[in-house]
């Protein structure tokens, strides 16, 4: 009926085209405007340095320096989730992009996935710089027993973490301006409970178990266990178990995002919230 003669992808192919197209501005943004590089890597390095010096002053085991350095690098991902992923759809609504995302045939889940991919590239770059700089500054040495396992832990952690970000993005969409406060509220406590700067085991079993809802907690713990084999008793749970839990979290969060999105689109269409502007 409307055969336009132009090929238009469907299904899976459309999903990926949409996701990569949405990732593109993020990736371009990362490398086109590099002013962020200085501030967004310098501050975490400073934060890391503070802990490194504290640990050295109290004669903590040398592995603690490595713990802090890895934690400091992983913070990049958490900040990305809070300040970019979670509020992105909300800003997109304000800019008038959300309407266009919704009425385009590319699924909004793919848009979210694209944001996640873009965010991963951006924060990955950032994390890598922080890691390299602080490793060099503080003379950290790593031991890796199993690189494939390390890779798997990292990927599954990211899947769970960005799945959580995708879910936040959908939920923040209806909450509006308060979203910003929630982000603020989550930032510092999560630094604490996720053990960015110390082994999570230190906050006790139940504390660590609760903190494990945030995928970074277990991800970080597993990565540390794999990178620093000096004192295995510092790990919270066995790496295999942590990997399993992270995989379950990933599935839960990604599905949660999908359901939240569908539900919110329905509410948005009924109540006219997709088309309103707050500014």
């Amino acid at each position, binding site marked *: 009926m409307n055969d336009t003669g132009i090929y238009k*992808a469907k299904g899976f192919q459309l999903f990926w085209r949409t996701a990569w197209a949405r990732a593109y501005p993020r990736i371009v943004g990362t490398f086109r405007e590099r002013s962020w590089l200085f501030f967004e890597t310098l501050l975490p390095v400073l934060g890391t340095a503070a802990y490194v010096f504290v640990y050295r002053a109290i004669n903590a085991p040398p592995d603690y320096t490595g713990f802090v350095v890895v934690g400091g690098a992983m913070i990049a991902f958490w900040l990305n989730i809070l300040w970019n992923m979670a509020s992105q759809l909300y800003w997109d609504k304000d800019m008038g992009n959300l309407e266009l995302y919704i009425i*385009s*045939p590319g699924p909004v889940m793919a848009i979210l996935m694209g944001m996640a991919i873009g965010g991963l590239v951006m924060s990955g770059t950032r994390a890598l710089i922080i890691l390299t700089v602080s490793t060099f500054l503080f003379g950290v040495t790593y031991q890796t027993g199993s690189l494939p396992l390390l890779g798997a832990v990292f990927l599954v952690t990211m899947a769970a973490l960005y799945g959580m970000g995708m879910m936040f993005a959908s939920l923040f969409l209806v909450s509006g301006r308060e979203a910003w406060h929630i982000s603020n509220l989550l930032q510092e406590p999560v630094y604490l409970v996720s053990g960015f700067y110390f082994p999570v085991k230190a906050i006790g079993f139940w504390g660590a178990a609760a903190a494990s809802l945030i995928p970074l907690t277990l991800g970080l713990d597993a990565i540390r266990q794999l990178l620093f084999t000096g004192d295995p008793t510092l790990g919270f749970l066995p790496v295999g178990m942590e990997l399993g839990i992270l995989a379950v979290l990933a599935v839960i969060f990604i599905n949660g995002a999908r359901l939240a999105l569908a539900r919110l689109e329905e509410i948005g269409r009924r109540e006219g919230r997709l088309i309103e502007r707050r500014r």
Partner: protein
Amino acid sequence: MINDAAVLTEKLDRIYKIRGPRRKDDPRELVALDGVNLEIKRGELFGLLGPNGAGKTTLIKILSTLLLPTRGRVVVDGFDVVKDFGEIRRRISMVSGGETSGYGLLTVEENLWMFARFYGLDSAVALRRINDLLHLLGIGDRKRTKISDLSTGLRQKMNFVRGFICDPGVIFLDEPTLGLDVTAARDVRAFVKNWMLEHPERTILLTTHYMAEADELCDRLAIIDNGKVLACDTPHNLKRRLQREAVFKLKVGPIGPKPCKEEMLESVPGVRQVSIVEHSSGTELSLILEREEVLSGVLTHLGRRGSKLISLEKREPTLEDVFIDLVGRGLNVDTSRRGKETP
């Protein structure tokens, strides 16, 4: 038969719940569309003409699957907007005036490419179409400009290109020439006309305040006010309704009491509608009279009130007059000025 209609609405109502701060006896609901029945045929360039708040954007948002109808049935390209919105989304696109979509860091080409990919286009095809369409709209040289550096008009042309890249079966244009200067608006209208000529199977629904635009472009028009469709016909037929009436435009000086619409309708028999617009140089009256002879009554009335006549013009009825006749007021000052400037 549904299949022949690109857009069909039956008894469409849309009621907004009012949220946020509200005083005790403020209304809780706002009826934005009230029993709208429309049928737009495939291949038509259909216009929605109405004042601010008439419900034009609301209707467009419902048709483009961003908003649900409160009641009634709405079908776009054969699919129901409530159930089959996924199918509809593959067949439509939308461009709104004053849109600020896209990411400022990207170039025009990158931004358009991104949206094209959301429709599943191949990269090479997308880039070729972007190039062609940008040239058609006269901004081929702006491909590599960052969109944060674009002027309003250039940006709007870019948005326009976005709407057409995916070659949609039905396209919704919500005040597409908003904020464009005369030349840019003319480019955009020429583009729309051409596109319809080259793609006779496609359908466009556009909303506008600009009478001349509606008159020039649209095959058929619906005049809408307060959520209701007051008339729906070709521009020619709409104007023919006023054929037996006499349409005058007159201007009175700034000194003396201002003419009063209610008083005139009451005290001069045969005056069907009046619209009064204040200018710094005087007051402009658009009059629709039942017979030409009524004019002398109007002049006597104005003279008695002390108004000084500056100019008087008898005109062929325009869409503006049709609008005044139906709605009881003009659209706005800008509209009438705009109408004169555009060729």
